[in-house]
């Protein structure tokens, strides 16, 4: 890094994105408008499982302003299939989703037809006139329902089963003093970004080129998939990323509409825009979580954990989409967490139901796994008469034991190890922050009609997925810098963070930097934003490009000033020689093309880690929970912008609390989604969780990348269910209530309390 007065990396600089968002001049998918643009609306299956007998769109086609009704028939004999981007296990291949239903529908919300019209309102009017005859089949909505296979080739509805592990769990359990087994589950919910999905597809029939604007997350991958489906060369498609109203894992995967809208644009040779409405969002975008687990822990009588066994059952919905089995695989992989457990055996069963397909949502599998394990740890500690903090302290992996291999838990992944950290120190910090010792007398106590509980949840969290990211930096003729990167923006402040890295490396003022991201036009190849990788991978690629550009600038300045590189320094976008002569970046760029490409390749994951602690009260009369205090402590290695990292942590905690108490996609036995509106699908509001704190530490940098950064966007959510459910359980322990299942709604808690009372009364 060069000598500027103040380095931006590590400081909470205000974001370069904010002025445009605050003034209403952001540029989102629904803001797109071009000459001749048509609007699409999608007819979605109203029933969960049926054969399609016939589709009659004649009335729709007769309406004024309707340009086309496209069904599977129009797409051709072969309906394109959405590929597996992650975890491409062969078992999943036959369960992948066709881009439109032809003979059969398998979930409420599955696309059957698209209407293209002069306006969105006309397209929606026309949807209502399309007649479809269905031969209904019985809906599968739970595990083990195998009498009606969703897929004709399959004998049952299990897509995949595997066993994995390390050590000898059977022997560990056989020899253990103490064993406990419990069943837990996390309900189906989803990320709910504030902006629904949307895009504008423009086909240039003369050039044979397609431009799709509104893409994000993995644009280069999606372009490849789309090119194959449309029979085009990748070069003939551009996916353009503009502002993105939240991602959280669900947005930007390849969905049916990512084919259907471009297909319609090409077929009609007109620009076609589609904006998802909120109702269809809730039934069309990836759902997530929905994992159950039978978990067993084997311990010595002193509380040392000897072994862990976990059987993970995941409801994948009707198809296996791009994320493959990431959700259950990670739910199994993160069962051991930050603890020294020598013998681990896990199994995964991914089964199909007539519900919306599942994909990743912030902290996929981790949110669930940490909840399962941390709940069982509390139960075990209490059984063994050991303080629940002491139990954890005893079993947390120590710094001396790192790197700590956790190989063999995911069949399609190579070896991996927890990298660096001081798990115990961060744990102690969380105890101190929540006031563990001062408040321990409150556990379960009834004060003013409510019971108090304090809960803990420890986690370790992977980030920085490989294999690679690319960046290209250009010093413009006016001396400003353009940074182009393959990482995608999801609203997280990517522009600012990458600008900070470039600014420091090149000693160029922050306000002279423009960051372009995601679009396939910017670079030959990019890899995108997922698995907390944008800073680790994209940031490191920008650092590499900036370092190379710096060398080029110095070389050019050396020629210009006639002084050797060793006598030059860069200050505020000027190169200054020891003798006082200087030349500005603008002057250097005016005469020469100053551009540098950078790349960063890495297959080693980062492991951030931390502890959450929650203090809640539960009103036993109503089952209502109040979060009095919440603290999340996480070591992220290095925070490029502490304000952004802190904002991510607080936002993630609240999303996690939603997952604990509110968010729930509810299906009935017929496979109907009962709450596809924001009036019925509840998420946290400003008055729900007013007291939350996050402490971001930079104790141990990651050795995997030159920035020392670890993934920082998910640590705020992954242990929320763990800590909060433990707090609720602690509050209700005197009433003999145990917590196994989310969400912790007032009716559920009220019923648990009532049932426990009745048991006690009956026993007496």
């Amino acid at each position, binding site marked *: 890094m060069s000598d500027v007065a103040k380095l931006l990396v590590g400081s909470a600089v205000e974001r370069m994105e904010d*002025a445009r968002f605050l003034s*209403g001049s952001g540029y989102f998918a629904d803001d797109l408008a071009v000459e001749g643009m048509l609007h699409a609306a999608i007819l979605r299956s109203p029933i969960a499982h049926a054969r399609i007998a016939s589709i009659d769109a004649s009335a729709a086609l007769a309406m004024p302003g309707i340009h086309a009704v496209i069904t599977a028939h129009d797409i051709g004999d072969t309906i394109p299939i959405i590929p597996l981007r992650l975890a491409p296990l062969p078992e999943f291949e036959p369960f992948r989703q066709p881009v439109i239903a032809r003979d059969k529908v398998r979930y409420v919300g599955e696309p059957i037809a698209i209407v293209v019209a002069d306006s969105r309102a006309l397209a929606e009017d026309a949807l209502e006139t399309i007649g479809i005859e269905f031969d209904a089949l019985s809906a599968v909505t739970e595990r083990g329902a195998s009498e009606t296979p969703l897929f004709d080739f399959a004998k049952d509805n299990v897509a995949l089963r595997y066993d994995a592990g390390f050590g000898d769990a059977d022997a560990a359990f056989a020899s253990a003093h103490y064993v406990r087994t419990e069943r837990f589950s996390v309900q189906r919910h989803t990320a709910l970004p504030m902006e629904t999905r949307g895009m504008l597809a423009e086909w240039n029939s003369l050039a044979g080129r397609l431009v799709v604007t509104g893409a994000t997350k993995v644009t280069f991958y999606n372009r490849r998939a789309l090119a194959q489906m449309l029979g085009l060369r990748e070069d003939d498609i551009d996916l353009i990323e503009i502002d993105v109203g939240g991602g959280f894992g669900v947005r930007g995967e390849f969905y049916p509409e990512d084919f259907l809208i471009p297909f319609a644009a090409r077929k009609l040779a007109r620009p076609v825009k589609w904006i998802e409405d909120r109702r269809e969002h809730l039934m069309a975008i990836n759902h997530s979580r929905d994992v159950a687990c039978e978990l067993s822990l084997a311990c010595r009588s002193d509380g040392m954990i000897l072994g862990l066994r976990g059987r993970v059952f995941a409801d994948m919905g009707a198809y296996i989409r791009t994320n493959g089995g990431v959700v259950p695989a990670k739910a199994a992989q993160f069962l051991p967490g930050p603890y020294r457990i020598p013998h681990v055996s896990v199994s995964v069963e991914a089964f199909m139901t007539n519900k919306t397909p599942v994909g990743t949502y912030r902290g996929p599998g981790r949110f669930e796994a940490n909840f399962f394990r941390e709940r069982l740890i509390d139960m075990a500690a209490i059984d063994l008469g050991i303080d629940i903090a002491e139990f954890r302290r005893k079993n947390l992996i120590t710094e001396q034991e790192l790197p700590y291999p956790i190989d063999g838990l995911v069949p399609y992944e190579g070896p991996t190890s927890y990298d660096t950290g001081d798990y115990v120190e961060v744990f102690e910090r969380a105890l101190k922050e929540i006031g563990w010792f001062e408040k321990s007398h409150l556990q379960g106590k009834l004060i003013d009609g409510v019971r108090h509980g304090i809960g803990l949840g420890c986690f370790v969290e992977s980030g920085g997925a490989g294999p690679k990211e690319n960046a290209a930096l250009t010093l413009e003729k006016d001396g400003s810098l353009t940074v182009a990167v393959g990482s995608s923006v999801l609203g997280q402040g990517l522009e600012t963070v990458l600008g900070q890295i470039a600014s420091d490396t090149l000693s160029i003022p922050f306000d002279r930097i423009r960051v372009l991201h995601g679009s396939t036009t910017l670079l030959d190849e990019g890899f995108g934003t997922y698995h907390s990788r944008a800073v680790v991978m994209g940031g490191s690629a920008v650092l590499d490009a900036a370092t190379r550009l710096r060398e080029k600038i110095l070389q050019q300045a050396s020629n210009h000033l006639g002084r050797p590189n060793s006598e030059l320094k860069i200050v505020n976008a000027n190169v200054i020689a020891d003798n006082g002569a200087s030349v500005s970046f603008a002057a250097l760029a005016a005469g020469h093309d100053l551009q540098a490409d950078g790349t960063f390749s890495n297959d080693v994951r980062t492991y951030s880690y931390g502890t959450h602690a929650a203090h809640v009260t539960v009103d036993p009369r109503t089952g209502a929970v109040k979060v009095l205090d919440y603290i999340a402590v996480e070591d992220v290695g290095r925070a490029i912008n502490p304000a952004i990292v802190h904002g991510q942590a607080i936002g993630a905690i*609240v999303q996690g609390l939603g997952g604990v108490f509110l968010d729930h996609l509810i299906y009935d036995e017929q496979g109907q989604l009962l709450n596809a509106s924001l*009036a019925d699908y509840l998420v946290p509001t*400003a*008055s729900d969780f007013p007291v939350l704190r996050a402490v971001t530490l930079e104790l141990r940098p990651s050795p995997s990348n030159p920035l020392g950064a670890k993934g920082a966007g998910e640590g705020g959510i992954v242990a929320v269910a763990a800590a909060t459910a433990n707090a609720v359980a602690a509050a209700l322990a005197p009433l003999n209530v145990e917590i196994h299942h989310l969400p912790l709604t007032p009716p559920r808690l009220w019923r648990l309390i009532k049932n426990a009372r009745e048991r006690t009364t009956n026993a007496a």
Partner: protein
Amino acid sequence: MISARALRLTVNGTQTTVTVEPRTTLADALRNELRLTGTHLGCEHGVCGACTVIVDGAAMRGCLMLAAQAEGREVTTVEGLGSAAHLSALQLAFRKHHALQCGFCTAGILTTAHALLTDEPHAGEDRIREVISGNLCRCTGYLPIIAAIMEARIAYSDVQCEAAQ
């Protein structure tokens, strides 16, 4: 389809005419006819608050109000609060407190807060939370939003003092 008719309304201080079908919502008229795309649609059923605009001083859901209902009235959108070059005190407080991430819900929260503080420049934290609980944000967890609005109150009390003098 019923034919479009012209409506006169004042938007961000400027008298304007939009020609829309009777079923057109105010939010759609602002976005599609006047190209004021700072007002965002997050749910189109009145829950999320992203489309909130100020009509004759009151915060209203742009998706639940027909454009025709705004005829002859004064509408303020996020674009009327301040420009990127000249952000208002409220907008600056949002930037300072990192009270936005993806920026999609931001316009509706700014208009809601502006309407609140214009009426109640001394609103307490609980009151601010209560009012902002009608707007959904999925990124920030709301804490920095509340902090920003609390800080911006001073600018609104100043306005009231000036008006009183």
